[in-house]
């Protein structure tokens, strides 16, 4: 991936969520950590254009998040914290198919791709299940499948293991590790980002540390005071 922040800052009314930042990311596995309110979520949302910069610009693989809004959404998939909010159709296969239908694909092709992506995540047996009946881990995996099925180049995952028990965390973590797409993972779950190529630490709207995971995590402990 090639993500560039150029003098980018974000303010919501009076509050400065992100101080001016200039940064380039080319690694394949990136992690983002920080205390609540540190700006990490705002940073992540700048990448797929959910949040627009108040000043400066963000480009993703050459596309500007403001000028090429639609293309950026195709380029960068975003998986939200609470998978419950992510799935919008009552039956699993319909949710996955909805994104494909929207891109103009037809019945057979949709079924084929749905099957393929569900298999990839090891949940093909859940295709006709009602979303309401899924466990937390299953919901998160299906939410990921529903985004991945539209072939984004980059995946941004916002606290993907937030609501999960230990076993499901492992399951989701293992799945993320095997993804072909480039990934940016925001998390409080430190084991999830121990092995990334580059780990960013945000604090009070600024980039407080940036580099190898061990070093950044150490820095995080210092900031958190524990």
């Amino acid at each position, binding site marked *: 991936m090639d993500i560039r922040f150029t003098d980018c800052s974000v303010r919501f009314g009076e509050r400065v969520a992100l101080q001016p930042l200039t940064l380039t990311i080319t690694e394949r596995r990136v992690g983002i950590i920080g205390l609540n309110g540190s700006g990490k979520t705002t940073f992540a949302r700048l990448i797929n254009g959910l949040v627009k910069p108040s000043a400066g610009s963000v480009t993703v693989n050459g596309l500007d998040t403001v000028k090429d809004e639609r293309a950026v*959404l195709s380029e960068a998939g975003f998986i939200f914290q609470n998978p419950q909010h*992510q799935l919008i159709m009552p039956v699993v296969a319909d949710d996955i198919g909805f994104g494909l239908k*929207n891109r103009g694909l037809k019945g057979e092709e949709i079924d084929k791709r749905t099957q393929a992506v569900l298999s990839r995540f090891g949940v093909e047996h859940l295709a006709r299940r009602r979303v309401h009946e899924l466990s937390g881990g299953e919901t998160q995996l299906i939410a990921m499948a529903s985004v991945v099925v539209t072939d984004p180049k980059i995946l941004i995952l916002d606290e993907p293991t937030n609501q999960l028990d230990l076993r499901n965390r492992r399951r989701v973590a293992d799945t993320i590790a095997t993804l072909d797409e480039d990934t940016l993972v925001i998390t409080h779950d430190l084991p999830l980002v121990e092995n990334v190529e580059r780990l960013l630490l945000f604090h009070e709207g600024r980039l407080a540390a940036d580099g190898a995971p061990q070093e950044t995590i150490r820095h995080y402990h210092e900031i958190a005071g524990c």
Partner: protein
Amino acid sequence: MLTSLHIEGNSWLHRLPVRAKLLALVALSILLFLTSSLVVQLIAFVISGGLYLSVGLSWREALKRVGFVFFTIFFLAAVNLFLLPLNEVAVLTLRLMALVLFAAAVTATTTIGGFMDEITVLLTPFERLGWVRAADVSLALGLVLRFVPDIFTRYQAIREAHRARGLPVRPLTIIGPLIILTLKDADTIAAAIDARGFRRQ
């Protein structure tokens, strides 16, 4: 919780295209309201009743579906008996029952998908005017079906929490929190929909 009223079957009405059924319902309504002939209403009632009963529902289920409407019809018919001649009351009552039975038969033999396809076609002129998008209606429908079970679970959770705290379980104290907690999710759900690029044209 949200199983549609369509039942599987292979009756004549099942095989009739949705549009034909809907047009027939409209035509029947117009016809029956234009005439005050008792014979016509009676024939319509018998045919509609026959169609409804041929659809494949058990007697109990068939009755359950139209029971409440029939109750209102009979109640008002009883009132009418004091105010209108018997012949006229018969016409009015048979007419309504015929329409209700035919409508119920259409509902039982048409799938949600079938209805939605028709609605998509019906919406085309409005889509051209830019008033509404058929894709948005499908999305909205999906969203409702998706979230009803979650909201119901939430209702039960609130009720339980009230009981646990010894609070009286009154609708007033539950409806407020239920609505707030549910509507608060709208922002994230909308963000997720936008992030998947669902509504860009």
